């Protein structure tokens, strides 16, 4: 994801005890501090839904790793979100096996239904749409991942139900 108008920050955040405990556990298991950086970023994202600049600065202080090292990693990987995301991130597959089975149409329908483009978040902050490369379920195409669940053999007519079920899951 690309960031616009980003200003370097001096702001830091205080990690929660749970976050610290999980990161400390990584450090115990790994003799090399830099080896934990990706997993530590994922822990922060699990708790905060995305990784802000302030989080990266704080993590670099916590791990005693160069800020530029963490920044370079955080901007490289697809599953580290550098902008706020909605409560549920929808990951429809844009791999070729899905597209051969109508995947592009399903992504257009999702886009229309949620009134957002790929990479955007709905106004009510409930959904973010980020398509992912081949999700490795090509015999069940088209597919989508949301809420750590794989939706298979998606048809246009099933989309309202899928979206409604996900909305209910958020409200619980």
């Amino acid at each position, binding site marked *: 994801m690309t960031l616009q108008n980003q200003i370097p920050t001096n702001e830091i955040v205080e990690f929660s005890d749970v976050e610290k405990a999980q990161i400390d556990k990584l450090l115990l*298991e790994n003799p*090399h501090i*830099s*080896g*934990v*950086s*990706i*997993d530590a*970023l*994922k822990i922060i994202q699990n708790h905060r839904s995305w990784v802000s600049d302030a989080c990266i600065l704080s993590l670099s202080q916590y791990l005693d790793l160069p800020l530029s*090292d963490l920044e*370079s*990693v955080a901007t*490289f*990987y*697809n*599953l*580290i979100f550098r902008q706020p995301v909605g409560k549920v991130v929808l*990951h429809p597959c*844009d*791999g*070729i*096996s899905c*597209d*051969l*089975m*109508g995947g*592009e*149409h399903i992504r257009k329908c999702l886009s229309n239904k949620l009134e957002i483009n790929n990479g955007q978040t709905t106004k009510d902050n409930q959904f973010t749409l980020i398509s*992912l*490369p*081949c*999700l*490795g*379920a*090509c*015999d*069940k*195409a*088209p597919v989508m*991942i949301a809420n*750590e*669940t*794989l939706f298979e*053999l*998606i*048809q*246009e*007519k099933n989309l309202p139900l899928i979206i409604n079920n996900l909305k209910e899951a958020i409200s619980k």
Partner: protein
Amino acid sequence: MNSKQKNCPKKPLTRFITDDDNCWQLNQYKSFGGYEGLQQALTLSGSAVLDEIKESNLRGRGGAGFPTGLKWSFVPQGDDAPHPKYMIVNADEMEPGAFKDRLLLEKTPHQIIEGLIIGGYTLDADIGYIFIRGDYYTAIERIELALKECYNNNLLGRNILGSGFNFEIHIHTSAGRYICGEETALINSLEGKRANPRAKPPFPQVAGLWGKPTIVNNVETFCNLPHILNFGATWFKSLGRFKDAGTKIFGVSGRVKTPGLWELPMGTPIGEIIENYAGGMCDGYKLKGYLPGGGSTDFLLEKHLDTPMDYDEIGKQRSRMGTGTIIVLDDKYCPVAMVLNLVKFFAQESCGWCTPCRDGLPWAAVLLEKIEQGKGELADIQQLEDLCKFAAPGNTFCALAPGAVEPLQSALVFFRVDFEQHIEQQSCPYCNSDNLEDGDDK
């Protein structure tokens, strides 16, 4: 080894998979003969196990088909060898159209772990990693539980099964990038860096993770090891129908009647897989072409259907067996659109390290988009051909860009008429025939 005394399976890799949802658990895996391969290995010396693996002709199942035993023989052995040595399972399945490792990860996590422990024992390694795609939630959960079961049953940790061998396994869930499947990029990622590939030499076998000897192999490669130890190299070689040894998980996706995965002998002809197992084309669709081994392999046509799924035989047809997962292109989907999808993917997933990949692939995507939208010129075809040459092996830092242009370069030959029609008509001839409204006909 005593292959005659045992009931030798024809489909070793999937013999543990039953209808039972819990078939992945340790007690069930053991009830089908799980961890007998490890027990067999522990009665031998590491070098004897390596000899058996070499003898079996096992070739890496991640796509390149490099002989596993030969690859492993470059790892320093003996008392003065550097430690810790690392064994890594590459479970970062992200090749377009590849879905075989998901099956093995979700259904037989212990088979992978057993293979990894055997590998560790063979090369006197200390630490194993399973580098798994972050989106494979079920697989991650099961691997984690399976590892716990192993530690609780003395299959991992200190003095495994009383053999004196110590080995630990960690799981790393990837943050998602296709390039992590390249072994040196994977190693950089494990070190907490950007996943740019490394220059070779030194090869990872000598200086890999944290500068120590490291082996990286695909999930399916490791899955074969318990069976080779259990039933012997001679049995393994007898499984193949052509020159290559063993079985393979083959798959088909696209507009076929029954897309899926099947464990079949190496050397099974492509046509047999598409017709007999995938049920042939869906009604109303004809076969236009196919990628035999995932998104980074050259197109083949109907006339190549007799080709056995054998590394060298497919190579003779100027394509690759790759992951063995076939993507079928039907006559109603635009071949330019298919290639555009693939090239866009590779352009996005390029790590950005070298110019032919970082700049060449997005350029190819722009030209393909232009042609697909009916704005192409004949000169664009020439430019695409040139870009394929720029990205050829030898011009790039790793194998990503050469793989990326394989479907493109073959499409430019086999589907040239389609490209030219797009340009002559200034529109996509398929845009009205694409049945993309829904998957209702399944």
